[in-house]
């Protein structure tokens, strides 16, 4: 066995350093998933009306996974993610997952006009005085939380997502 040279020792040390300082990262394509919230805080309850006049109370969905999205019609990434939310809902709704999209500050007419271009079938709720969004830990639109069957905030996404991404759907399904 030969004795390593000074250069070889330095190379090996650098390699070790790099592996410690820059651990392997996941593929770039998986970066836009959901952020896990380790503390799992309790979701604030709300009671809001949808475009059909039906009232939705978050606590009445206890026992089911609920995706709660905060949005507005004028918000570009909110509009962009809506079609993928619809596709995700078509897959998840038969499995018992609930999806509620809470509009901030706009009236029914504005949202009806929006749905002509972005047809969605999941409930669009009205938070006209913004009381609900202000009681949730939200600072920008869109923001989405995934609530587990125990009523806790488990995942968060700030900004739009491709909600029909199979990896993302699996994260939601795993909470059931």
């Amino acid at each position, binding site marked *: 066995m030969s004795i390593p040279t000074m250069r070889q020792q*330095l190379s090996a*040390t*650098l390699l070790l*350093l790099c592996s410690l*300082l820059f651990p392997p*990262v*996941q*593929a*770039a394509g*998986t*970066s*836009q*998933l959901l*952020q896990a919230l380790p503390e799992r805080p309790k979701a604030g309850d709300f009671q809001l009306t949808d475009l059909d006049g039906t009232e939705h109370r978050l606590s009445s969905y206890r026992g089911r996974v609920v995706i709660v999205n905060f949005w*507005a019609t*004028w*918000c*570009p*990434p909110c509009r962009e993610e809506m079609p993928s939310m619809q596709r995700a809902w078509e897959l998840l709704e038969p499995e018992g997952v609930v999806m509620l999209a809470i509009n*901030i*500050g*706009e*009236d029914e007419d504005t949202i009806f006009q929006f749905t002509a271009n972005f047809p969605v079938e999941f409930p669009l709720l009205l938070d*006209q*005085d*913004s009381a609900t*969004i202000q009681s949730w830990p939200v*600072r*920008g*639109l869109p923001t989405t939380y995934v609530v587990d069957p125990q009523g806790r905030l488990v995942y*968060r*996404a*700030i*900004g739009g*997502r491709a909600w029909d991404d199979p990896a993302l759907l699996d994260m939601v399904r795993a909470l059931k």
Partner: protein
Amino acid sequence: MHIITLLLSSLFIPTAIAAGSATTGSDPGTGLAFWRYEAEGILFELNQRLPDQTRAFFQARGFDTDAANQFATSCVFQSRLLNTAVAGGASLQFNLNEWRVISGNKSSSMATTDDWMPRWKKQSIGQAARIAFKWSLLPTEQTYAPGDYNWGMTSYDQPPGTRFNLTLVWHREGRRESATIRNIECPADSPQETP
């Protein structure tokens, strides 16, 4: 051994100035200018908004002409800030109150939501309009996980046509990092018709 010690020290000292790149250009469709800063884990983009666009947006949401004009002529950009780290990477925190606007030899803060909201209340702007305003601006403070981002308007409190440098500040893994985008131009205003 001395080389290794030196290398280790340089790796562990927090870097104050991020090694990124700033680019500028214009939208081929509108001719409006944009500025973009990119470094490891961060992308920040500014797109000029004409005062007319901003006036129209807020008047459609209940602002009166005077209030819409005050904001529209305060040097408004459509902005996008992203944590571009891959999954499992570090989170990114920012607070716009740390950012600096440098025009000539004067350094000032940006005008954030917290600066504007009391004005609108004082000017009796309606609740729906104030809600739209609050949520259409880039949040003043955020913590982004990898992949998180926001779009929103930002206001630099400068007259139309002013050129300025913007120093961005963000925090990652306990380090405070900063970068400066130079020679940003506030969108010019078109002459307003007098009644």
